[in-house]
């Protein structure tokens, strides 16, 4: 599994990802994510690589991200 930087343009990708979710309900957003994962997985194809990605995504981070309190303060 690649761990190093591999994006041609990370910021542009991130922007288009957020743009795709703009204005969607929670359910629509979740469906979009699921469809996107399947589309990308098919681009990867390799079984071992896909298993490694699933395992890495499932690992808990060393410490959980702090819950932000941007609202209600």
């Amino acid at each position: 599994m690649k761990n190093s930087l591999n994006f041609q343009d990370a910021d542009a990708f991130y922007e288009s990802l957020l743009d795709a979710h703009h204005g969607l309900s929670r359910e629509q957003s979740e469906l979009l994510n699921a469809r996107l994962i399947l589309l990308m997985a098919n681009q990867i194809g390799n079984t071992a690589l896909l298993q490694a990605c699933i395992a890495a995504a499932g690992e808990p981070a060393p410490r959980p991200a702090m819950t932000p309190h941007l609202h209600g303060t």
Partner: protein
Amino acid sequence: MQEHPDYAETAFTNGYEFTQGTGYQLPEYPFVAPPELTSGEVRRHPIVVVGGGITGLTLTCLLAHYGVPVILLDEDNTVGVKGASSRGICYAQKTLEIFKRLGIYGRIAAKGVQWSVGRTFAGDDEVYSFDLRQQQTLSLSKEPPFINIQQFYVEGFLVERIYQLAQTNPGVELRWRHRVTGLEQNGEIATLSIDTPAGTYSLQADHVVDCSGSHSPFRGWCQATTTAKKGDDRWCIADVRFSNPPPAERHTWIEAPFNEGRAVWQHLMADGVWRIDYQMPPDADLPSMSREDVVRARLNAQFKRELSPEECEIVWVGPYAYRSECLDMLRHGRVFFAGDAAHVVSPFGARGGNSGVQDADNLAWKLAAVVEGRAAPQLLDSYSDERREAAQFNMRVTNRTTRFLRPVDGAERLFRNAVLSLARQHLFARQLVNTGRMSTPNTYTHSSICSKTGGLATQNTALTWPDGTRGELIDLLNWAGSRLLLLVFGDLPASAARRLQDLALQTDVRCVQVIPPDSRASAVEHVIDQEGHLQASCHVFGHAWALLRPDSYVAATGESIDTSLVHAIAMALGTRWSLQGEIA
């Protein structure tokens, strides 16, 4: 002289507030009653700049440096914002190179702070860190990636440099406490109404450059339309001095535990002053967030103890909201807009002040060439095209950062959480952490005065003079002044050298041959490119020429000394060139 009772004091409309602390003693410049007040004569000037902030002062200094007459009108009598201290703090390499051309870089480098270690945190964890010293090989420039210094220092250095240049160029004038109250213009000329403490008068200008900031009245006078976006993000700056300072590193927290999980920026400026910038709750009330007790409570939370006023002196506090805004055209008749008057962005990535300085650099040589009759007036239209492309790029880049730092609930927050949790372990995810993409020179992809291979910035690389001493590209640019500089790389056959000589005589372009070490030059004006950095900086390879503009951008590149070069020169000056050598 009797003060005119109608001259209102400058209004502070930008939301910056001064609190306790010794702060800064800003210089004050004298008001001098202009000759028009007694004579009643309406004089016509080639260039009038309005607004003595970093953009207006850079433009005035560049024009003075090029030997062009210019009048600067400023409603205030000092630098910075009266009663406040600093706005911009971070000056990028391209800006530093411009200041070097103007002869003030040495003072900025001596006064400012260079740092190289940056650390980014989420919660209590360091997400990643970098050391710019290890990345410096990426840069060919003699100047560092950036220097932190309070904006008013830079402005003060510019004022002093302008006064120095004015000694040999009597057409350069700084008019303090001159407020523009009205504009009228036709196709030929603009007329400005001006209010001073000694009375009002009018003057006429062939070209007016509005550098009066984000509340510019010229926008309304010119009926300029804008594209704008305003968010609910709020921040509050505390500029402080510690008796026991933290390490000289830039720290950014995306989710600071001591700021209710919101972002915090901490970096050092000149005089041992730290800028600590706290993200506030969305739509927070600006005046209440800047009360001294509230600011002290935030500092105590960050440093985990009660800091006494002796240990931590608050120099200045500035709460702010930001917006993203760009004029749809940067030229309206005789009026050109530059700096914040033309475009406003969020502060992330230092793209405000730095782009204002680069607006000035783009416009100055074009104005000089047109005013001196060396270029067609249409050349000035390219300012709007090039700098609007730059402004839109800066808006896009800063809006991406805004979206990361102030994510909307839902997918935006979900993906930020995912990025931060992955970034702790996975290198690739750090590329998605966006705390601001630092200002770099913009590329002009749609310019009417650049060829397809042009529109790129060069860097101030080192070179070697024929006598073996070292120089740099800026020395050549300063030699060319407001004229184009042609660099011809590699050896030059006699026939090509002759054509080049004819071209130099006909077109007023400065020509220099650039040769590798241990080779023979055929042109009188030549330099040695010891490391090949000059050529790399001009984005050409092998036998080639690069046509450089006074703002150190490549206008065009090519291989042989033929009509393609003649056309490139004409194009860069906004003219068409016939083979008889006449400007059409």
